């Protein structure tokens, strides 16, 4: 090497070997339903353990499939007032909320030009079947902006056939669809950085997009008090789940 002063080049220690354990990586990437991860708080972990036992019990009897926000689901519920005593609703999952037994998911569809959103409890005994018609992810964690998007992005055929998933078991397809919006006013100012939405094709003028950046909080990602490292908790829960449900 060309040295600048005629002195020998500074000693560079060899790079440390990075050991990538493929097995543990595979296990960590497998799907864990978000309602199993306990929220940060001062409650006794015993409460979450007992709730998890009930959730596992329900999952043994009733199959709750893996799905993400952005997948299209069909849910059949027991309804005392319907003619067949059951109602079937097809929609795209916009939001998954709640932790533990009270976990919910909201399905959205546009039926006869009327937008309909139904919020279901995942562990409610009235749900008789959940089928995933199309398993895919979107660019955002929640798709509440579909309320202000053009209705074509929320319409799904009620008699849609289930789309068989592509054979890649580890990779769920991410639909990088950029949605076109109805003219403003919207229910929320989706262009603001606090929502951090990547799935909208903003057709707003440049100065409006710049003005929205005024509300950005770039220090938030460095805030250490907001960090919640769930890796160890997730490992324990995954182990528990695989023991109970894997049988």
């Amino acid at each position, binding site marked *: 090497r060309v040295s600048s002063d005629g002195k020998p080049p500074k000693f560079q220690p060899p790079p440390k070997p990075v050991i990538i354990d493929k097995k543990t990586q595979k296990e960590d990437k497998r799907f864990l339903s978000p309602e199993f991860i306990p929220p940060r*708080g*001062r*409650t*006794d972990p*015993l*409460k979450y353990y*007992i*709730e998890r036992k*009930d959730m596992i*019990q*329900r999952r043994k*009897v*009733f199959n709750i499939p893996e799905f993400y926000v952005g997948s299209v689901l069909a849910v059949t519920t*027991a*309804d*005392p007032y319907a003619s067949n*005593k*059951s109602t079937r609703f097809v929609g795209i999952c916009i939001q998954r909320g709640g932790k*533990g*037994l*009270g976990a919910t998911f909201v399905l959205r569809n546009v039926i006869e030009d009327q937008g309909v959103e139904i919020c279901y*409890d995942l*562990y*409610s*005994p*009235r*749900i*008789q079947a959940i089928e995933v018609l199309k398993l895919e992810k979107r660019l955002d964690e929640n798709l509440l902006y579909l309320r202000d998007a053009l209705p074509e992005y929320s319409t799904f055929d009620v008699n849609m056939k289930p789309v068989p998933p592509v054979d890649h078991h580890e990779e769920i397809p991410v639909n990088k669809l950029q949605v076109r919006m109805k003219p403003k006013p919207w229910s929320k100012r989706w262009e603001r950085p606090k929502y951090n939405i990547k799935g909208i094709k903003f057709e707003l003028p440049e100065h409006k997009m710049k003005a929205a950046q005024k509300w950005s909080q770039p220090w938030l990602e460095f805030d250490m008090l907001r960090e919640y490292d769930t890796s160890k908790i997730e490992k324990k829960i995954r182990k528990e789940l695989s023991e109970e449900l894997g049988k």
Partner: protein
Amino acid sequence: MMPIWTKSGEKHAVTLLKVQDCHVLRYVSKEESGGKTAKLLVGGKNVSPFSKPESAHEIFKEAGVPRKQKVTTFNVTDDAIIKPGTPLYAAHFRPGQFVDVTAKTIGKGFQGVMKRWGFKGQPASHGQTKTHRRPGAISTNKAAKVYRGKKMPGKMGNIYRTSYGLKVWRINTKHDIIYVNGSVPGHTNCLVKVRDSKLPTYKDCNKNPPFPTFFADGDEELPEDLFDEEIFQFTDPSVTFA
């Protein structure tokens, strides 16, 4: 708090209460206490004995029990007297019973009159000078004084309050947990007193409760979970309406 579903598909919210190291500490007879019934002093939740002087440990030493964080009294009839030193478990209660729960409410500190008493305050604009959350008038002209107990700003919360008539849905005997309908005063992990309901509608509700209490070394073998009849068990298939 947790949701619980009945067999007809209705959802109810339920609070979990854990019975942690409860022991009977002392028996006070009717004449000694001067009340209408005998009393039993019960203590809950073990705590280190080093933060209090020796004089405070007498009750616990007599009963042969580590120092407890909270000691409460229960008014008890003469046939329900228990020997001091017996542990009390969650199985003392049965599903389908009704219960009153007492605890200290969450302390909110010094609060103004709008939050503490629900006053309406004054409008935000239209000429109000420095008066938006004040109590306004505190008495009339003729009274010429302010009555005792006038609602005014002050320390709010951190007082004992009771929720009456809460149904017990489920009991976990392994971890000593009582599932009680609705919400309960107090913050998470606070100490709470659970007592049979004194409401007149629930006077005859207890069908064969363990009397005087559930003894762990007795002959009864209870299953790990006791459910009320109406609860939907997660081992059953989904609910269908006929």
